[in-house]
């Protein structure tokens, strides 16, 4: 903090900060705010990094929320205001090439401080958009990165490393003669990771500068990302989907313990009223010995029908992988995929190599004469060919947005499936406000099956733990 802050000012800023966290899905209550205040009291404001860790320990209650916290923290407790020292110190005539040289050096050096300075200068030099004094002006990370193109600097940075300009003993492998070392091969990846780090620094710096101009609230609302369990399946980009995929294993472990706990409770037996009353005849109508219902002997079976057409494929493949990771919780899991033709993909999902989406579209027959999704046709296929997969112990999940391109919904087939199965659910990754708009026939299907909105991981895991029969 550069400016001394009076107490009242600090308190209101803290409350505002907690409010911003709440709006991003970190459930911090008043008691957390009080904790945070006493943290500030103990630590003081002198050292920003310590303050960051301290506030995080009081306000963040679980892993996976830290990134959101850090971004918001940077906005509310910025390291400084306006142009930073590095920007003020730079040469007046510095141009793009000089900056690129600086960046290459910083990338090769593995030096976080230098990278940060380059990021500050770069945003100041390249990132300005709009009129600087108007409220719509600001700094754009996208524009900065487009002009600087850090991804093209890989070779240059690697070259600098090779010369030993890397310093810090990083280039030492050259000094030891020609023996090839494993670490040599890591250099490329390391530089690539540095580039990624640099991108994030540019984004953070642009957010900070823009927040000064347009207010913290606006920037928090638009530029701070949601935590990974709230990423919308339908609007997630490639990187976010990757991120989601890494959460599958820990998530499945968590869900498995919850399902197991529910199963244990279910087995502890409900009282069988009929048999208890029958038994009580022997004791004059007083139910001395309660009779319990027999526990269900078998684990449930699960059948997944997944729409894998472009619009919902991210959601479908995430759910397929999650269910596969949970497969030991069910006696049998079968997965079917469709766009407008139904095909079984259980084996493809089991085999973890390669990208699931591409492999399904290559190896399974999921389309007929056209390539847009047709639920009625696909459900008809299923009822015709695979209905034997559904039995009285089977729960069927249909994944899709019910956007049928104005084809026949084929409610009859869906009804057949519902009749044969134990439970039938439809998980719709679209916000329920949009059901029925455009070519969506979600309300029509929702009359026949129970339809649940499933926009993010949070909703999906809630469905699995609460509703799925065990």
């Amino acid at each position, binding site marked *: 903090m550069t400016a001394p802050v009076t107490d009242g000012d600090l308190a209101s800023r803290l409350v505002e900060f907690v409010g911003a966290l709440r709006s991003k899905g970190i459930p911090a209550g008043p008691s957390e705010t009080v904790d945070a205040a006493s943290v500030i009291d103990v630590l003081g404001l002198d050292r920003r990094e310590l303050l960051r860790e301290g506030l995080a320990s*009081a306000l963040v209650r679980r892993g996976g929320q830290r990134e959101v916290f850090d971004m918001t923290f940077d906005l509310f407790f910025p390291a400084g205001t306006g142009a930073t020292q590095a920007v003020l110190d730079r040469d007046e005539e510095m141009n793009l090439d000089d900056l690129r040289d600086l960046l290459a050096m910083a990338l090769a050096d593995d030096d976080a401080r230098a990278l940060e300075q380059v990021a500050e200068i770069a945003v100041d030099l390249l990132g300005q958009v709009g009129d600087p004094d108007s409220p719509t002006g600001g700094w754009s990370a996208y524009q900065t990165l487009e002009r600087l193109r850090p991804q093209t600097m890989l070779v240059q940075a690697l070259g600098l490393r090779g010369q030993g300009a890397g310093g810090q003993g990083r280039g030492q492998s050259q000094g030891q003669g020609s023996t090839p070392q494993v*670490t040599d091969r890591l250099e490329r990846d*390391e530089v690539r990771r540095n580039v990624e780090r640099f991108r994030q620094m540019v984004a953070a710096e642009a957010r900070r500068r823009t927040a000064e101009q347009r207010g913290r609230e606006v920037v928090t609302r638009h530029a701070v990302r949601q935590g990974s369990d709230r990423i919308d399946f339908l609007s997630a980009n490639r990187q976010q989907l990757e991120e989601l995929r890494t959460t599958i294993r820990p998530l499945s472990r968590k869900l498995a313990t919850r399902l197991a706990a529910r199963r244990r409770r279910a087995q502890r037996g409900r009282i069988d009223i009929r048999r208890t009353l029958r038994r009580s005849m022997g004791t004059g109508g007083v139910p001395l010995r309660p009779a319990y219902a027999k526990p269900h002997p078998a684990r449930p079976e699960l059948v997944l029908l997944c729409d894998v057409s472009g619009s919902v494929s991210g959601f479908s493949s995430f759910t397929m992988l999650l269910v596969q990771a949970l497969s030991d919780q069910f006696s049998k899991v079968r997965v079917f995929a469709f766009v407008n033709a139904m095909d079984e993909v259980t084996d493809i999902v089991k085999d973890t190599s390669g990208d699931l989406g591409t492999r399904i579209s290559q190896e399974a027959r999921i389309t007929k004469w056209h390539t847009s999704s047709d639920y009625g046709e696909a459900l008809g296929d299923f009822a015709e060919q695979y209905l034997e997969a559904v039995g009285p112990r089977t729960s069927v999940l249909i994944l899709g947005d019910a956007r049928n391109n104005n084809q026949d919904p084929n409610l009859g087939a869906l009804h057949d499936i519902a009749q044969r199965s134990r439970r039938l659910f439809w998980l719709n990754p679209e916000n329920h406000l949009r059901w029925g708009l455009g070519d969506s026939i979600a309300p029509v299907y929702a009359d026949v099956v129970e339809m649940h909105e499933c926009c993010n991981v949070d909703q999906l895991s809630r469905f699995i733990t609460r509703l799925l029969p065990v």
Partner: protein
Amino acid sequence: MSTMDFTSVDDVKKRLEEVGYLASDAVATTVYLASELGKPLLVEGPAGVGKTELSRAVAEACDASLVRLQCYEGVDEARALYEWNHAKQLLRITAGRDETWDEARTDIFSEEFLLPRPLLTAIRNDGPTVLLVDETDKADVEIEGLLLEVLGDFQVTVPELGTIVATRKPFVVLTSNATRELSEALRRRCLFLHVDFPEADLEERIVRLKVPDLDETLAASVVRVVNALRALPLRKAPSIAETIDWARTLLALGADILDDEVVRDSLGVILKHADDVAKARSSLDLDQVLSPS
């Protein structure tokens, strides 16, 4: 108010380092806050990043006694809090045949027949105490309720003896591997610390501290390879414990540089699944006989 006698964050860092625990800023700050605010510290993170080790280090740095409650499925009040020594009570009753019931009753529910379990031990301890509740997520939900009561007020009620209040608040560390979500109520009472794999610099220092005989450049290479492995989609990413094991292995093998053969032969020390080993081999090009450079 403070439970331990740390004076500042840097003091925490220095004293933990003296007992062989290199703390990051995050760890040192949270430990200091937990001690100053008298709140329990909930530590989460992958296996082998030094969660349990942290409480041992704090205990050693402050000359406090370490009381440990290991949680497992089915751990109950009798294992966590206290228990009456039934066998001894029976012996006492049979030994004093002639006395009246009232005399016997007041006697057999006295201090002598009480078996204190970790939570009670920690609360009754007069000196500085570190209470470690290990793997809290393994315990059942009921125990969480018990912990809430004990950690909220630092007092235990034994019906026959009355309420025992802590004379000196223990420094409480709860660890969790996040196999189960801990309840919101328990989380709210704690300061939360997520320990992750350390930065490369810190890890290098840790390796050098734990394996002092290892060559400096080799230590740097070890950390680099481990960091590269963590970037791969492995089933179990190597943690600090594995890094240290690997460094010790390399020392025992007498390796002075990391070449393909050494890494290939010792990969089993850091990776614990067969398919992880295969994945690491292919991505590090270990199966190529001649490296392309």
